[in-house]
């Protein structure tokens, strides 16, 4: 049985739906294959800014409050997110209100007003968000790491831009981003939950006549040619923040699931029995927190460990994390440990997809970014097929590509860390 029914409207909008007869609600998602990666350098943060603007009103729903009030009136919940390759809008509503919920989302991505006064007001909000981020190094050390790894190309830049680029935005430039990238062929509509046979007609009615000129996407990522392995931001802090890791496979790659399990056994998603958590937090008390993560794009990817560490013992922490990557490359993981990581990863994935919103968000993400909404079983099968040899191979590819380190903390000698990376 496949989880998603898939359909393409005449204008190119793709629709995926997952009927869940026991659900009481419906999750509606509109995903756009557009994000921070689609920005010109001077337009840093425009994808995220556009997401904010989309909530400020449409031709028919003229203010932010009116829009929000309509969601509340039907007891719905709504939110959105912007990443480098995807912008996602969602609403959860009781099954009786699916027409209103979907109308609202379609209206937002088609008819947003981009009122000049709203642009100025949201600018203030976003600048505050950006400033606040820079007060918490744990919130941006990963951006330094990606900048180090990818250099000055779109996937190397922060999603929310810089204070300068945000301040420079105006109604025209933002609306231009919206018109250029919020197009039918980049749009995926997803519905999951208590939906009936009328939902196809509803989608057709609300978005079937959406016409906007399409544009080619951004240039593929190039491998950043630089010998620099350490990015250091000097800052007086009680606790240093760091990311340490290296290059990994892109999204569509056959090694994606092995990569996922490598990150899981190192420190996946807060797994407390993971190697890094146990060694750095529980046993040696070097770090306050540590986890490992995979961040992949259509043509690039990375795995890194991230944590907040004791400033006096950072050398020890860096050495230990680098050693954990090397150990994964040099030694085959035991079958018990691999099974634990596999069960953990499968469990997390299955839980995330248990809600209508979780299920359809997975489908929309795959459809919009990778061109096809994979069945959840494909992921579970992929994770099941990973062997200890696969994990070791992926780890040794990563180590061979060079370990990289980004640090924010009270240090001024990057060379010291270069040495520790080996």
């Amino acid at each position: 049985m496949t989880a998603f029914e898939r359909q393409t409207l005449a204008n190119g909008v793709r629709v995926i739906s997952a009927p869940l007869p026991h659900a009481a609600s419906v999750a509606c998602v509109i995903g756009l294959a557009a994000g921070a990666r689609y920005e010109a350098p001077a337009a840093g943060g425009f994808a995220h800014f556009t997401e904010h603007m989309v909530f400020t009103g449409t031709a028919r729903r003229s203010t932010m409050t009116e829009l929000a009030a309509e969601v509340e009136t039907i007891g719905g919940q709504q939110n959105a997110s912007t990443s480098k390759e995807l912008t996602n809008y969602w609403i959860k509503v009781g099954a009786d209100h699916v027409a209103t919920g979907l109308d609202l989302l379609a209206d937002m991505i088609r008819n947003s007003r981009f009122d000049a006064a709203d642009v100025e007001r949201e600018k203030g909000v976003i600048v505050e968000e950006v400033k606040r981020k820079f007060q918490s190094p744990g919130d941006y050390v990963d951006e330094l790491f990606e900048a180090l790894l990818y250099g000055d190309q779109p996937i190397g830049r922060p999603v929310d831009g810089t204070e300068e680029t945000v301040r420079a935005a105006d109604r025209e430039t933002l609306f231009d981003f919206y018109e250029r990238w919020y197009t039918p062929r980049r749009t995926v509509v997803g519905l999951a939950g208590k939906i009936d046979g009328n939902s196809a007609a509803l989608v057709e009615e609300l978005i079937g006549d959406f016409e906007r000129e399409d544009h080619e996407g951004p240039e593929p990522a190039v491998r950043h040619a630089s010998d620099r392995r350490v990015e250091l931001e000097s800052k007086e802090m009680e606790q240093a923040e760091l990311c340490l890791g290296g290059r990994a496979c892109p999204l569509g790659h056959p090694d994606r699931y092995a990569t996922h399990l490598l990150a899981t056994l190192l420190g996946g998603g807060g797994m407390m029995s993971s190697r890094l958590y146990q060694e750095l937090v529980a046993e040696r008390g070097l770090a306050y927190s540590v986890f490992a993560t995979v961040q992949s794009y259509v043509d690039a990817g990375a795995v890194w460990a991230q944590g907040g560490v004791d400033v006096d013992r950072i050398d020890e922490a860096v050495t230990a994390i680098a050693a954990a990557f090397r150990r994964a490359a040099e030694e085959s993981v035991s079958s018990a440990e691999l099974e634990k990581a596999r069960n953990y990863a499968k469990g997390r994935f299955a839980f995330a997809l248990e809600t209508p919103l979780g299920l359809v968000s997975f489908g929309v993400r795959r459809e919009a970014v990778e061109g096809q909404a994979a069945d959840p079983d494909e992921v579970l099968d992929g994770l099941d097929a990973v062997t200890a040899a696969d994990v070791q191979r992926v780890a040794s590819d990563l180590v061979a590509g060079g370990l990289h380190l980004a640090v924010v903390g009270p240090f001024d000698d990057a060379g010291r860390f270069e040495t520790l990376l080996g």
Partner: protein
Amino acid sequence: MTSFERHTLENGLRVLTAPMPQAQSVTCFVMCAAGSRYETWETNGIAHFAEHMFFKGTERRPTARDIAGEVDAIGGEFNAFTSKEYTGYFVRCAAASRDVALDVLADMLRHSKFNAEEIEREKGVIVEEMNMYLDTPRDLVDNIYEQVLYGDQPLGWMVIGHKDAVQNARRETFLEYLDRWYTPQRMVLGVGGRIEPGLLARAEELFGDVDGNGAGGPPPVEPVAADGPRVKIHRKDSDQAHLCLGVPSYPLQHPDRYPLQLLAMVLGGGMSSRLFTEVRERRGLAYYVFGVNHSYTDAGTLYSQAGVDLTRIDDAVTTIGGELKKMADERVPSDELEKARSFAKGRFVLQIESPQGMIQFGLRREVLEGGAVEPQEVLDGLDAVTAEDVQRVAQDVIAANGFALAVVGPFDDADRFERLLA
């Protein structure tokens, strides 16, 4: 078909189930009718400290790694919380792994070692958590507000406790607290989601020999005498002030609970509420503002919380106070009441859609009010509320009581605020 089924083991421990056959996962919950309100000043914080210690090791699972590893290996997700009147521990996992999850939960809660060295080590972590909490005005302000309302009695103290009590905690402190309150009458095992056969036998095996009588409980809350408004300032140098302003309301089981809930919703639930519109949108006085009702078994409060500009805090206080009074003075228009009603109902339906949400709803009622109720009862209760009910309740709680105000910000002078509220 009912949503909940209840069984009582011979020792009095209740087992509440919410079977949801369509789910893949199961959530196993132990909720206990005990929390920081059950402490003395000398032990204030021990309920929360015990939550940390439960994860450190048992006879059969000697280390934190053993506990975490076992749950990780079934792909489970662990969570816990401690509040003033109840405490919960739960694991969400695949339906087939339920018995492992139950075994770990029972073992942690019943056979934790409370090793003296581990206790000493954890004190540092708790104190850090406390420092962080005290540094976050947005989290702190409602604690200060409850001090205003409930004064120097357990309900007025903080869940996280105070440093002296944490520093003085010893193995015996935990064991005494747990012996006294973790008794069969106070504990409910809740299981929601896909429930495979054999649950009751397993529950009997793991919890059937919990003993103790758990009679008694903390003294009922004493009203804090006041003539006129009560104001407490927690001085903190910051560029934004946080405040809570409200009135005493009703305990949980009050017959007017649903009118009170809708009263809070009209006043401050979401972006279409009166407080959001008047305080934030129309006057720009606050960065955030909301209004809620928060009830305990024998006390409650209807209040607004806001983060405000320092120079305009007087306006914010006056405006919020004015909106509260208006609820008592004027009847809510019917469209506004309908909007609040569908908002409340919609959110409730979404909340109980997941196994975890459903069982948590049932358990909270079971533990605090003596019996889980069917979700339909809540929906019917909300449906029955009229505008007259809302005004009657508003007159009873708002017009009849003096205001209580807590402020975290760079102020010294409580009189200034008392005059505004007089």
